[in-house]
């Protein structure tokens, strides 16, 4: 049983040498393992900043608050320590790292997170199985990390990593954007497998309700102007689908 708590989190985006802007203005949220929390909100409300700030992206700086994983503040940890502690971020725009093969990257990553190198044969079997589940062609293992992948291929590989790394908490940042229905199903099934197998806690950031038909949220939060503006059950998503975000955009303006 894992408890993931975001308390009074404020963060700036670093724009230039002397330029910064506050994006997160006091975020409070608790996610227990096994729970799925959908974070919905208009573009520019700070949803992605929340994801990146938690992961430790260098363009963001946390100015106040804490993020506790079972009582331990992960903000005191380096980026890679946070990942090894069990926090995973599936990025909206996964990064291309030329020349580093996917298989080499995945093996390094799994070795680091599990604390020991998996046996080569065993790992290659595990990898092949996980790739097959996500309908990823086995040729991708030899290609550079995300290099020349389509948007959909990148998203599948984010979920592949989610399944291999078995984190306690996964933050999925617009994993559904840019996917056609078939790809959305495949990716959602991957998320649901990870939930089942590892009692995963999920923070599902999305702009649209479409993915919520496949990955069922226990809680829905509306994110606006850098904080959670309203929380509810899955019925809140239906309201948002019908009414849009207009009410929240206005409220903050």
């Amino acid at each position, binding site marked *: 049983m894992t408890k993931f708590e975001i308390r009074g989190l404020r963060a700036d985006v670093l724009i230039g040498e002397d330029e910064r802007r506050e994006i997160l203005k006091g975020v409070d949220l608790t996610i227990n393992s096994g729970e799925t929390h959908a974070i919905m909100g208009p573009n520019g409300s700070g949803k992605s900043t929340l994801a990146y700030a938690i*992961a*430790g*992206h*260098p363009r963001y700086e946390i100015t106040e608050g804490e993020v506790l994983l079972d009582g331990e503040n992960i903000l005191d940890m*380096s*980026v*890679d320590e*946070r*990942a*090894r502690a069990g926090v995973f*971020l599936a*990025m909206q725009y*996964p*990064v291309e*790292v*030329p*020349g*580093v093969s996917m298989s*080499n*990257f995945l093996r*390094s*990553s799994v070795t*680091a*997170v599990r604390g020991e190198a998996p046996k080569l044969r065993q790992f290659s079997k595990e990898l092949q199985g996980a790739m097959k589940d996500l309908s990823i062609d086995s040729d991708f293992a030899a290609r*550079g*990390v995300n290099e020349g992948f389509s948007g959909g291929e990148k998203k599948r590989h984010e979920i592949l*990593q989610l399944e291999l*790394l078995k984190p306690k908490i996964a933050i999925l940042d617009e994993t559904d954007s840019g996917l056609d229905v078939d790809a959305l199903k495949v990716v959602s099934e991957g998320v649901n497998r990870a939930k089942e197998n590892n009692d995963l806690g999920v923070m599902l950031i999305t702009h649209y309700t479409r993915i919520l038909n496949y990955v069922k949220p226990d809680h829905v939060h509306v994110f606006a102007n850098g904080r959670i503006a309203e929380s509810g059950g899955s019925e809140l998503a239906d309201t948002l689908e019908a009414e849009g975000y207009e009410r929240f955009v206005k409220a903050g303006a």
Partner: protein
Amino acid sequence: MTGPSIEPKAHSHGLGDIPFSKLATHGSFDVNDFPVPNGREEEWRFTPLRRLKGLHDGTAAADGTDKIDIDAPEGVTVETVGRDDARLGTAGTPADRVIAQAYSSFEQATVVTVARGTALERPVTINREAQGGTRYDQFVIDVQPLAEAVVVLDQTGTGVRAGSVDVHVGEGARLTLVSLQDWDRDAVDVTQHNTQVDKDATFKSIVVTLGGDLVRLSPKVAYKGRGGNAELHGLYFTGDDQHHEHRSLIDHNVSNTRSRVEYKGALSGKGAHGVWIGDVIIGEGTTGTDSYEHNRNLQLTDDTRVDSVPNLEIFTGEVEGAGHAAASGRLDDIHLFYLRSRGIPEDEARRLVIRGYFLELINRIPVEGLAEEIMAKVERKLAAHE
């Protein structure tokens, strides 16, 4: 960083000036035709002359020895010849005083000939271990028409070395020349590669510079027939107080020739200095030239210095392609963030990214085991700088 100079020639119609290239230095075999450089000359302005140990001003006495072992498969002739051999100096002229000094001073030369039509079953390996002192050398690699060869010049050891490598790639022949500058930390090496690429021949040069105190390597290519293709790839890892300078010149003096120049470096530590000069001339009256050159530098620490200067001179309007690019920067922190966000510790993430940066280039080395060996050396050097 200095910008490129692009100087299209004005149409002369028989009245104007004769086209003049600033890049095509005519050179001389005689050291006395060159004044002693003072460091302000265009061709010397990046080179720390005081670290040349007398190569440039005639004070270096030729007192050094090399241990040379050549492994050559069937179809290859290896000869040691004297100054009067007619094959010496036939691929190009010394372009600066040090190279001319070497040509004026050498006593013996090594000539490697790959017989016409022979496809070598394994590479020719020239293991050259410098055993101190100063030495001037000449190498000739003659790949005769329709032959196919890979030649590895693996240079290690210590000393002060200057000379030329003259290369002929005959009609329809293919040569990959791998030149490793894996010298001891205190060595000095000033070398010019002259390559003549004949009709429909393909020349690939892979230069790997890791060692030495000062390495200044000038690969020069000219063409003897249409359809000639030259690809020059370079990799350097420049550490504390090392000076690595690469000066390529591609002279598209014949129509329908192709060239690619790609040099990639990593620099780490105080006083590390990388210089890349990429000269390309597209000659008067030629058509169908296809040329591109590219230099990238990864500055792993802030106390390194890079000078990257592409020069393109075009004397014709009939070019198929001509371009260049140069970029220097630090390790991309977003690349590192991505790898680290998957649990990979920072030092390992750096290693993966740097390995990836060099991988494509290193994979061009068509010698079993050598690519891995070079990558391992790069990683050892990287580890020493962490």
